[in-house]
């Protein structure tokens, strides 16, 4: 009975880690739970405290956390039902959105801004964590048409499942609608809806 039960909850979606931890502590005196995100860490810590356990957290080099739960006394029964919180801190509730509002990045010098936006898009295309949606409006739409110097980056993002919404009014204004080479023509309804539902929104 004194053996430590190890629960490896890395890679599991909320509330799985805390559910597994709860099952384990109900039948073992000592449980070591390994999690890889802050939400799971907070939930398991909260569970341990609530069940009257001794809680010790150790941060590992690879970014994971080891949470040691030890039952104090004999009884580990929650008086009320434990409700894990899956929408805490780092958890996202909506899509990750990047808004490209101009064909440059930052204000002050346009030549430099054009250098920066190209570097930005090239870097986004190479990132492991890609946005779900990218929105282009105003002069930002110029980056999505034939002759754009970032087309290969945008096409790569598109191929990897990133949705590119390009403002139709803007393409029309610059008279480049027939030159669209990446993304799909979109409208203010989709743009507003996407922005409103975003879990995270970046405007470089």
């Amino acid at each position, binding site marked *: 009975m004194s053996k430590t039960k190890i629960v490896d909850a890395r890679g599991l979606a909320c509330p799985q880690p805390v559910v597994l931890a709860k099952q384990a502590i109900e039948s073992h005196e000592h449980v070591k739970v390994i999690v890889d995100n802050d939400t799971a860490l907070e939930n398991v810590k909260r569970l341990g405290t609530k069940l009257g356990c001794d809680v010790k957290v150790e941060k590992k080099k690879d970014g994971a956390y080891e949470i040691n739960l030890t039952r104090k006394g004999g009884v580990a029964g929650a008086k009320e039902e434990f409700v894990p919180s899956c929408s805490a801190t780092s958890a996202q509730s909506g899509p990750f959105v990047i808004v490209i509002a101009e064909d440059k990045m930052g204000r002050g010098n346009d*030549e*430099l801004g054009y*250098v920066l936006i*190209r*570097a930005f898009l*090239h*870097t986004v295309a190479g990132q492991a964590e890609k946005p779900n949606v990218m929105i282009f409006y105003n002069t930002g739409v110029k980056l999505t048409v034939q002759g754009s*110097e970032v087309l*290969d980056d945008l096409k790569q993002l598109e191929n990897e499942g990133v949705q590119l919404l390009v403002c139709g009014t803007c393409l029309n204004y610059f008279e480049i609608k027939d030159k669209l080479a990446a993304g799909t023509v979109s409208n203010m309804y989709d743009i507003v809806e996407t922005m409103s539902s975003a879990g995270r929104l970046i405007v470089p």
Partner: protein
Amino acid sequence: MSGQPQYFVMLFKAVSYVLKAEKILKKEGLPHKLIPVPKNISSDCGICLRFEPSIQNKIEAALLNKVEIEEIRELAD
């Protein structure tokens, strides 16, 4: 593609050199791409020009006596 890198990057002393080189290469119609300096080369927020190894000579000739090139390196994938 055994051994041969897909791209080279050309590094310069200053951003203004990169822009000058870019203008020349555009005028000459030599394909290239402006990208951030890869992290394994420098952690500075720098930019450089990426190009295919096959046109290295043409690029160097176009920039000769016009823009000082600091270094040309292979771009590790």
